[in-house]
């Protein structure tokens, strides 16, 4: 099954989803299509006016362009998602995953889809990590 991960570029979640036999939907895949497509040539990020228009499907025109830009990449992945794992309060709330409003919007779009969603806290210690892995394992094994 296709599992959307939040943060969408998380190494831990990407690895765990793949390890337990599912296909992770990550932002790296969307980026890959943009940076290797010869028809698009606006380095370094290759966000085209088309992308921003695509973002309008997921967020209104009054929403800041940064959110729409992000949703232009993540939105089509959410459309494909059959399940999702959301890691709450990751400590790296900066960079491409550092937009709080986008993260809220993503959670809203996922809930609206009515697909199975697992919300786990970012592990702070050994017990937390054990709990996180066992919850993710149970969730992914239960997806058929």
């Amino acid at each position: 099954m296709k599992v959307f991960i939040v943060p969408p570029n998380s190494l831990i979640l990407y690895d765990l989803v793949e390890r337990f036999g599912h296909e992770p939907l990550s932002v790296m895949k969307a980026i890959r299509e943009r940076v290797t497509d010869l028809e698009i040539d606006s380095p370094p990020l290759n966000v085209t006016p088309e992308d921003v228009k695509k973002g309008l499907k997921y967020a209104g025109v009054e929403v800041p362009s940064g959110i729409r830009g992000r949703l232009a990449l993540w939105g089509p992945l959410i459309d494909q998602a059959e399940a999702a794992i959301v890691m709450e309060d990751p400590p790296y709330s900066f960079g491409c995953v550092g937009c709080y409003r986008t993260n809220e919007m993503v959670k809203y779009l996922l809930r609206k889809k009515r697909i199975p969603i697992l919300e786990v806290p970012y592990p702070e210690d050994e017990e937390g990590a054990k709990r996180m892995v066992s919850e993710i394992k149970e969730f992914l094994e239960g997806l058929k």
Partner: protein
Amino acid sequence: MENESETRMIVIAPTSDITPDRVVRFIHSLGRQLTIKETCYGAMIEGSKKDVREALSEVRKLDPNRIFSKIRGYPIGDTRRCRAHHGSRPGFTQLEKEWKDLSLVEKGLSAAERGEKVKEPKRKEKIPVKKLRDIIEEVKE
């Protein structure tokens, strides 16, 4: 689809005895058509999806719970990202943080393998009315 190229990051947990050098030599010894780059956290490999995935499953066998992987958007040495060409690497702070925490995830994976039961976290309880009353009385005095 199988011939489509893929770039993968192979990340070794800090608790592992495997070195990036060993991973790179091991991948070379598989004799597949792959581009390999040794990095501080492990290695990056690039090639057809089939070759990359087969190589990855072999590499994982070296230390299954301590070798992690994810795909990478940019190809190896892409001038927009490669530091040798003064490219920026905005995702590295996140990778660095997650790399440090892989030792915790490894413990979680080992516990899940053993079927260890995980303790439920202590939930915050509401303060009983009597205790709240006592506090109010205490403050009043």
